[in-house]
């Protein structure tokens, strides 16, 4: 395999061994690590890899309060199956203070604000407590993510570590198959990208995958990967 090494499959794609070594290096320096997960089927690869490396690493599930019941059940199932140290991260702002001027919940008029209160703001507080955020973003998921690097600074001096950045959908599929990882129960009902229920849409055959979230809006990211990151010019 051209360019293959112990750390990278190609010049960028990290192997499980490479991920493990990097995590051990962080830990050897005394850095505090955590990861976050949406517990979708494709997210399970990173969780499974981490469970093989160190099951004590906290896995923050951003519980926005708007998840499908199926996602919450799947979270509990996977937590037990992998033996994870899952932490339920809830918003600080009570739901009744998340209504707009019309009295409707914010997702009906200002999804950015809704994402901020329920995802970005709670995660911002977590960043203050840790040194390394192991984050499963992949470059092939969006233009924003394609512009990221494997290691990137985040607010409060935290490092974002993106071990899956250059894994492809095919690699994810192969890993899931090899380890027989479970599938989110809504996938068989036609959901491909599963987030908060109000802003998730089951795809019709003529729709693109990106339209599974915030359908009809220009919005493609919730803010975790645009606000909780320090952007630098990408290294060629």
């Amino acid at each position, binding site marked *: 395999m051209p360019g293959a090494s112990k750390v990278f499959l190609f010049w960028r794609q990290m192997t499980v061994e490479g991920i493990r070594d990097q995590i051990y290096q962080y830990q050897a320096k005394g850095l505090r690590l955590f990861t976050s997960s949406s517990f979708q089927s494709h997210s399970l690869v990173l969780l499974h890899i981490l469970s093989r490396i160190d099951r004590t690493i906290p896995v923050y599930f951003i519980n926005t309060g708007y998840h499908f019941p199926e996602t919450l059940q799947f979270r509990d199932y996977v937590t037990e199956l992998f033996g994870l140290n899952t932490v339920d991260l809830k918003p600080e702002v*009570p739901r009744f203070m998340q209504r707009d001027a019309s009295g409707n919940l914010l997702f009906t008029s200002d999804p950015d604000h809704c994402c901020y209160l329920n995802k970005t703001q709670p995660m911002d507080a977590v960043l203050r407590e840790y040194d390394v955020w192991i984050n499963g973003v992949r470059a092939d998921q969006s233009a924003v993510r394609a512009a990221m690097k494997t290691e990137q600074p985040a607010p409060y001096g935290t490092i974002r570590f993106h071990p899956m950045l250059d894994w492809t959908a095919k690699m994810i599929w192969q890993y899931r198959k090899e380890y027989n990882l479970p599938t989110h129960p809504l996938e068989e009902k036609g959901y491909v990208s599963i987030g908060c229920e109000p802003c998730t849409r089951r795809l019709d055959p003529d729709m693109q995958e990106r339209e599974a979230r915030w359908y009809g809006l220009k919005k493609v990211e919730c803010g975790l990967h645009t606000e909780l990151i320090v952007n630098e010019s990408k290294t060629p």
Partner: protein
Amino acid sequence: MKILVTGGAGYIGTELVSRLAQMPEVKKIVVYDNLSRPNYNLFLGGKLAGHEKIKFIKGELLDSRGLRLALKDIDVVYHLAARVTTPLAHTDGHLYEQINHWGTAELVYAVEESTVKRFIYTSSAGVYGATTEPADENTPPNPTTFYAVSKLRGEDHVRRLAPRIETFIFRCGNVYGYSRSMRFDAVINRFAFEANFLKRITIHGTGSQLRSFIHIDSITRALAGVLQAPLNGGTYNLVTRTISVMDVVDELKQLVPDLEFILINQHMRFSHLMVKSNEFINKQLNIHNSCSFREDLQNFLSRLSF
């Protein structure tokens, strides 16, 4: 036993709280209600038996923090609070979602962090939607109104509790009969009011639509009975009668001889909503039709002031 009742000042809640307060095993009752219907009758009429056990919190389901505080040391939750309008719950879908779906989800999240051991949710027979024969608990739900959709989505969140907490979901029929906190939008209650005071009833649709009902005393007895009955958690129908709207009118005509009725939109033929009584549950919870429907109505009319 310490109990929290959401919607405890409402139509069913008022009667349930009054009954629970008289049970010796019940040590404390927290009424959690936002008084969205400005009905204060729970708070009036002199001291209730067991009144010293009752505490009131004016709060709403979406107050995540308030719910967590209210649930401190609570053993049992009755979740009755909901946005309900009848007839024709077809407008402002978001508001039903906000309260009945997301509000229920919020309560479930708070319960997950609490010491609650038993959760009782009053869902609706409306989740079955239009029926051609009586629906039992295995009939796939197919709700057709915003209200019923939101109640069913609330069920999905409540059901998450089942592995850890004894969880009861009751799909209740249309409730009728006298409560200290009345609802006169529910069909039989409205008919009784109009028959007694106006001598003229207005009917939606053809009147031939069948509906499943339960008397307020029966549902109150059933809900209180869950505390003692040897029942496993689950999803159960809670109905005692299935009759047509016109059957209600016919019975009222026997009691109010000069009664008239107006069919205000008889071009609309509404679907039936028939739900099968669960005889096992009704027996376990000691609910049955102790008198005829006409006697029920007679008793109701006797509670009206003139």
